[in-house]
């Protein structure tokens, strides 16, 4: 019998602990498939965050370090400076990357640290039970904004792609989503571009993935996917924010 589908070698056989309808699983698979296709699994070193993806070190089939909350880009910097020829990536959520770890994220990008960051933006703290994230939308109800996020009290959602693309050290920055097949395929292409930027020693690359959290949003998996499209995407426009790969192509 012909094999028509095989699980990527980039993932271990450990079952995911994610909630039903959560898109972490999809993004894990995309990252793993990209690493396999680029042939870098044997020289990849990943850094897991604190948050829902804390167990990412169990799932990716490569060497892994588990970082303190928000510090993954600093940890990845340490690894990359020891092994500049390895492929080093972080996998972080919005609280990790855009709240407690903002400084580490911004300065890794500013240094042009040659690492790849996969950033899951689901507009909420998942693991701790649904508190406001730096990326929660205006009006969004969470455990810590029970009457909705109000600018007067909570300020405005942080747009990381827009911020980081202003930095000269950033080589490839794109925002994608995974709410339907078309967007999943686009997301994979984006992740591949980001890893390719690193392999070509272009500097800091980050892919922001608009993701779902049905459990803490209080929606069904299908409603949650629709919520990404209807609510998140208008505030967080998808697209390529920085691409030095193309410059090189044009130049070369």
């Amino acid at each position, binding site marked *: 019998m012909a094999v028509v589908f095989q699980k990527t070698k980039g993932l271990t056989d450990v079952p995911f602990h994610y909630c039903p309808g959560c898109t972490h699983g999809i993004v894990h698979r995309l990252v793993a498939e990209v690493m396999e296709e680029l042939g870098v699994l*044997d020289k990849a*070193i990943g850094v897991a965050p604190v948050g829902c993806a804390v167990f990412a070190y169990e799932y990716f089939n490569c060497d892994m*370090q588990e970082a303190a909350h928000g510090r993954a880009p*600093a*940890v990845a910097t*340490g*690894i990359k400076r020891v092994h500049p020829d*390895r*492929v080093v990536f972080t996998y972080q959520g919005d609280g990790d990357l855009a709240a407690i770890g903002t400084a580490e994220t*911004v300065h890794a990008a500013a240094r042009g640290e040659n690492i790849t960051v996969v950033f899951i933006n689901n507009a909420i703290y998942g693991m701790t039970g649904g508190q406001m994230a730096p990326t929660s939308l205006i009006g969004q109800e969470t455990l810590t904004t029970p009457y909705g996020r109000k600018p007067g009290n909570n300020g405005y959602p942080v747009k990381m792609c827009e911020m980081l693309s202003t930095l000269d050290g950033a080589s490839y920055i794109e925002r994608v989503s995974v709410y339907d097949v078309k967007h999943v395929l686009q997301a994979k292409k984006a992740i591949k571009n980001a890893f390719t930027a690193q392999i070509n020693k272009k500097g800091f690359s980050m892919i922001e993935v608009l993701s779902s959290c049905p459990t803490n949003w209080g929606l069904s998996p299908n409603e949650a996917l629709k919520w990404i499209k209807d609510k998140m995407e208008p505030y967080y426009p998808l697209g390529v924010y920085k691409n030095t790969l193309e410059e090189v192509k044009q130049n070369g």
Partner: protein
Amino acid sequence: MAKVLMKGNEALAEAAIQAGCRHYFGYPITPQNEVTAYMAKRMPKVGGVFLQAESEVSAINMVYGAGGAGARVLITSSSPGISLMQEGISYIAGAEIPCVIANVMRGGPGLGGIQPSQSDYFQSTKGGGHGDYKLIVLAPSTIQEMADLVQQAFDIADKYRNPVMILGDGMLGQMMEPVDFDNIKKGENHIEEKTWATTGMGTRKKKNIINSLELDPQMLEKHNIELFKKYEKASKEEVRYEMTNCEDAEIILVAYGTIARVAKNVIELAKRENINVGLIRPISLWPFPVEPFEKTVNYVKRYLSIEMSMGQMVEDVKLAVNGRKPVYFYGRAGGMVPEPAAILEEIRKISGGAK
């Protein structure tokens, strides 16, 4: 290479390079800025990495990453910066990553001052971060000893897969003394291959994970017990101290680092007044040397702990003496260094009626 005249901070940096350290992460803070300047100059020349991080928080996590990736790593700072690193140090101890951390202490609390102090003794020896862990803490009192201990520190860190702290102060960091790097008693340098490091799997079958998370309480307790077996071994094998004039002493001073130098002068001053004073100088602050107290407790009349703090090491002295003889304390804080005359006066005071 003959003896070179160097600042303590420079000797610390050079000793690390000579110990094979090729990765240094830091952030500017007084009084340890000579270390970053020295590393920025020297590291590129020896094919190493100097990286100025955006904060001490970031720097210590770079150490986590680099140490976990198998490198010999050094990080240095001074008191407020070391406070910022405590989270990272706890993770490093939990994940069993070897590295060397140097604290060139200044006065606190808070922003405090920039003059020398020893007020981070508790933070260094009792676990400044969260959770059950220990640092192996070494305290030099000369620039030569700074160079010697830094070299040993890297070997000890690798031996135990544990962070080792060099605890100095602004005085040691800033003052100059001749250092002989040729005759440094180098450690065995038996660095076992770091088969646990995240280097990329290559042809290795099993992936390596650097981690301090364990949600199963039974497993976490097991990990705690394993760590303490390691500390138990270190508390037997890494004890370092120096005894001066203790044989017939009636009063024994206990002092480490900068203030131990002053205490040595006091021995001579006291002799002129016919007071026989000795000195126990702990070199390893953790493990704290109990042995010199066992050797002296039967005949000495009293101990006097002298510190550049409001009294921290004195608690370990009391634990070691365990009520068998009176333990006194004299200290200055905030960047003040006790003078020999003041210490002598204190000695007169406590020996008072008995003499």
